[in-house]
């Protein structure tokens, strides 16, 4: 159990049977008055946000969350299949749950899958991934208005802006937090 004084930004708690992460937190207290714990939380399954003020004697369950290392296998329709690298157990996560993460998933990639009980609810990717450029138009100087970048498509279908020297077949490093090009990878 957590008590209100344990609350802080980033803490995960369970409310009404669902896991929440605290996204904003402020401790308030009139000098002679009650301690108030003002929070903004996000439901880790639905993404819904809400704000709530708690008191000193409020208590919270710890959510049963576990991170497991899994390997991405393949996708079938909207289902993305992963395998636990130690138990070989297989699970799938839907396209909707993965959101923008699908832009950076390639076969055999190792990711951290977050489970709430036995239900996978989120994945975290490596910060940097290397992806192969599958389509790059030749860059014509003066084509773009003052910006020295051009669009390319990588193997996952994700499109991004890169410097003009990147060519089809190159491997490039992408920051998965921002989706931005970092550097060209020599093999």
């Amino acid at each position: 159990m957590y008590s209100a004084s344990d609350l802080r930004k980033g803490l995960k708690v369970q409310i009404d049977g669902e896991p929440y992460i605290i996204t904003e937190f402020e401790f308030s207290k009139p000098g002679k008055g009650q301690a108030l714990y003002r929070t903004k939380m996000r439901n880790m399954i639905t993404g819904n946000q809400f704000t709530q003020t708690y008191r000193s004697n409020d208590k919270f369950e710890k959510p049963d969350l576990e991170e497991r290392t899994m390997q991405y296998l393949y996708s079938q329709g909207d289902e993305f299949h992963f395998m636990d690298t130690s138990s070989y157990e297989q699970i799938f996560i839907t396209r909707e749950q993965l959101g923008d993460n699908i832009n950076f998933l390639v076969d055999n990639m190792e990711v951290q899958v977050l489970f709430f009980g036995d239900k996978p609810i989120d994945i975290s990717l490596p910060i940097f991934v290397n992806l192969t450029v599958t389509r790059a138009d030749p860059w014509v100087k003066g084509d773009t208005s003052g910006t020295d970048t051009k669009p390319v498509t990588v193997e996952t279908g994700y499109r991004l802006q890169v410097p003009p020297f990147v060519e089809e077949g190159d491997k490039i490093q992408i920051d998965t937090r921002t989706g931005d090009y970092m550097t060209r990878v020599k093999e």
Partner: protein
Amino acid sequence: MLSPTGLKQRSDFIQSLRLFFRQRDYLEVDTPIRLPVLIPESEILPCASGNWWLQTSPELCMKRLLAGGATRIFQICHCFRRQEQGRLHAPEFTMLEWYHVGWDYLDLMRECEQLVVELAFACSTLAGITDGRNILRDNREVRLTPPWQRLTVDEAFASYTDTTASAALAEDRFDEILVTEIEPHLGWDRPLFLYDYPAQLGSLARPKPDAPHLAERFELYCCGIELANGFSELVDADQQRLRFSEEIATMRKHGRAAAMPETFLRDLARLNDTAGIALGVDRLFMLFSGAFCLDDVLTFSTDELF
């Protein structure tokens, strides 16, 4: 950890505080910070020190000095309150507390105005002060020139909420509404005194003679931030014992240890009319410095101790 520049600014600020009170014939005192018994306050958690406690404020010892014959005293000291950590809170912080025998809370409001005006002038090079007489915060200038705004608690509830102070108290939502709906508006034109609290929220304050359901208590606000808390002190020892009994009962209900401060009550019987006030030194210095949070102006923040 403060830089040498920060240390110098903090030191100059505290020296200016001292100068103000010394020029007004206040005596600086230093009372013990480790005590066998504290004032029973159900909403303040003390830190244990062996079988004793670290002070949550110097009020108890300072009032005993007044009962012993001192008439104007001030103290700048560290106070300790468990589990108070936030943008405007630190579990160990610096308090300025001063008392003036013969005065009431209205006299103290006026002295408070003079203190902050003189202090701002003395510290006019700090980043949060403009022209030596305004506080600059969130791109707004708060004029320090007296008289400051005065607003009763009842008026504040009428202006900023759709409930009343007594209804909020009955629902146990007074502090929550104060913090979320009222405080953010207070003290942006000039600093503001919020005063005349419901009697049950001023267990050490004198009831108003013509309205005993109210306590002669005020809080000073500047830029939505609570800076100081002052009273016309309750000097009736029997009434004080009754108020303490209620606090002790609440504390025991929550499983907390609490004892009646008998020596204090014995001395209180000899105290004449007095007004007293506690001001958060770190918070005022934070405003003067234009700092975002208390941690930025403490010599060491809690995190920096590890």
